[in-house]
């Protein structure tokens, strides 16, 4: 076994993390297809795939449940899936959150009252903590289902990759934290204070917020308070899944300084939280055929005129382009070397060269997969 196949030999869940714009979605899809081609039943959960990629895979956006990708699409691109199966879905965060509320509601009446609450209706996106918690809640649901050999989760595009790791905690903090607890303390004494009380704080609050908002909000808090136990349990299960034996994280980065810093920060957090890291992929490496060699730019235009018969103007243009690319290749190599050193020898690292053009079709995924599984 080579490359990713070896890294993921024991994995049942692979969470692909990294900062925005580094190729997480394409890497997730290429690795899922590659593992399917090794005979596994694989599902990949993506957040926001490029429309061209979704179309290329035949993904219907409305699902919110995995759909089987027709194996012919990959066979035609030279990657027969054999006995393996590739499934994929695009996450609908709002719907996933609604589903969760429905499942945790003690009865139909509570559920309907929550869905009808104006604060919930208007602001549930904000409660869901954007997409991070819903992504991992969906992952948990699919893992419970047990019908997959491997689940691949493409984490949401956030400025900070750590937002993802913090998501279960943030929601738990919302439900368990000082904030809501204060409101719900002693069977809702805090809420009574705010909702119906005539005390000082209530008077002041009404003065700065307005009475109607206050009453909608206290209804909202009271209703969600009934789901508290269920949420706590769910957050614990999700947290346990992130630490489970078959769960591993895969870091994805591009070779620029900031994504590399972020990848290192992410790796430290994983280590501190005792979560497994199977390896790191660096996408879109600028490479030239001379690596980091010094002095190759000296007298280059003259050499190009002489050795390649280019006109002086064209020779200058080619030399200028090469100077750019050479500088980027050296920069990228230095950043990857830093990543390798800081991650340590026990974390395998794979650098994938920049492919000419974006990867947004099945051919592209197969090409990327060939690099990942080489």
């Amino acid at each position: 076994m080579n490359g990713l196949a070896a890294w993921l030999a024991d994995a049942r869940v692979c969470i692909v993390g990294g900062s925005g714009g580094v190729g997480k979605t394409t890497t997730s899809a290429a690795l899922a297809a590659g593992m399917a081609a090794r005979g596994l039943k694989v599902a990949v959960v993506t957040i926001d795939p490029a429309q061209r990629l979704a179309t290329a895979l035949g993904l219907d956006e409305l699902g919110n449940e995995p759909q089987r990708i027709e194996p012919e699409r990959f066979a035609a691109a030279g990657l027969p899936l054999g006995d393996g199966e590739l499934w994929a879905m695009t996450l609908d965060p709002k719907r996933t959150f609604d589903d969760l509320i429905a499942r945790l509601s003690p009865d139909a009446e509570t559920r309907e009252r929550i869905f009808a609450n104006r604060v919930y209706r208007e602001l549930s996106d904000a409660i869901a903590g954007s997409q991070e918690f819903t992504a991992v809640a969906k992952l948990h649901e699919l893992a419970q289902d047990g019908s997959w050999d491997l689940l691949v989760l493409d984490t949401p595009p956030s400025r900070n990759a750590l937002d993802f790791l913090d998501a279960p905690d943030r929601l738990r903090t919302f439900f368990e934290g000082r904030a809501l607890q204060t409101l719900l303390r002693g069977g809702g004494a805090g809420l009574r204070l705010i909702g119906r009380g005539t005390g000082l704080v209530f008077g002041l609050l009404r003065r700065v917020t307005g009475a109607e908002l206050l009453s909608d909000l206290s209804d909202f808090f009271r209703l969600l308070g009934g789901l508290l136990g269920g949420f706590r349990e769910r957050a614990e299960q999700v947290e346990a899944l992130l630490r489970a034996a078959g769960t591993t994280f895969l870091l994805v980065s591009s070779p620029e300084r900031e994504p590399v810093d972020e990848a290192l920060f992410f790796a430290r957090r994983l280590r501190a939280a005792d979560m497994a890291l199977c390896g790191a992929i660096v996408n879109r490496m600028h490479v030239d055929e001379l690596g980091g060699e010094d002095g190759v730019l000296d007298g280059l235009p003259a050499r190009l005129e002489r050795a390649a018969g280019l006109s002086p103007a064209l020779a200058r243009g080619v030399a200028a382009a090469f100077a750019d690319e050479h500088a980027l290749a050296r920069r990228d190599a230095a950043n990857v070397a830093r990543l390798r050193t800081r991650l340590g020898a026990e974390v395998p690292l794979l650098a994938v060269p920049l492919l000419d053009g974006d990867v947004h079709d099945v051919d592209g995924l197969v090409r990327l997969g060939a690099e990942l599984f080489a």
Partner: protein
Amino acid sequence: MPAFANKRLVFVTGKGGVGKSTVAVALAIAAARRGLRTIVAELSGQARAAEAFGIKPPCGEEVRLAEHLHATSVGVDEALEEYLHERAGRVGDLLTASRAFHAFTGATPGMRELMTIGKTWELAQDPRRISGRRPYDLVVVDAFATGHALGALRTPATFAEIARVGPIAHQGRTIDATLRDPAQTAVVAVTLPEEMPVAETLALHGGLREAIGQEPAAAVVNACLPERLGPRQARTVADALEAAQDRVTHAALRSALSQQARASAQRAQVERLVDGLARRSAEARQAAGDGGSPAGIPLLELPYVFAEALDLPALEGLADRLEALL
């Protein structure tokens, strides 16, 4: 041209990783050069503008970076405290000290976004709501990534609607009216000439109209590669590559062709963006029954910076280009 110099509030947004912060700082540098008293407001708890000038300011503080140029990192707690104090004086201070009140604001969904947007609005008021603070001519907001930014821009109207009456409703409506007024507020969409960022920019057009009834006032395409070879020259180079004998020549020709291939893929994405924005803009005008000027959305390209890190001289260089938007 959008003439940003006459606006009060400019929100800079785009997909994660496209260079929003860079564009925001460079745009503010350009405005300050024009003599506008300008402030960059960062929303992500970062202080990248100040750091580029070697300053590490505390959250919520407005610091001077250079002549006419200031920066602040918007903090939710500080913004809330200021709001309460301005709104209710000593009574507000009492609330700030109340645990139940912190519980209430901490648990209310969307409150963070409301406070953040409210603070950027306050920075743009003349006179300022906070006594003793000097007004700015222009506030450049280094905003959240597209989806989150759209959600945040909607919160003043959402809260106004839920609250219906009372101070939050009133405040929400006032802020929303400022956001909807193209004479005061503009949104700049930053993108890269690549598939996903371009798709997100095109989606932003509809999302922004829905959120605040405005189009992006400009699109900035960041990190555009130079087109050093024309099509005929590229063929000459490809032929020379076939025949190349020594490895330095081979490597140089190969790299030049690779750069050319990427540059022309970028051109295709820029064209897709131009066409897509023009079409959406025309559809929007038609839907609004407004036969007004088909001026379209101006698009500005910034060059790829071939450097290890984006330092102050590099930012100054990008500011030169962004002056076109003022």
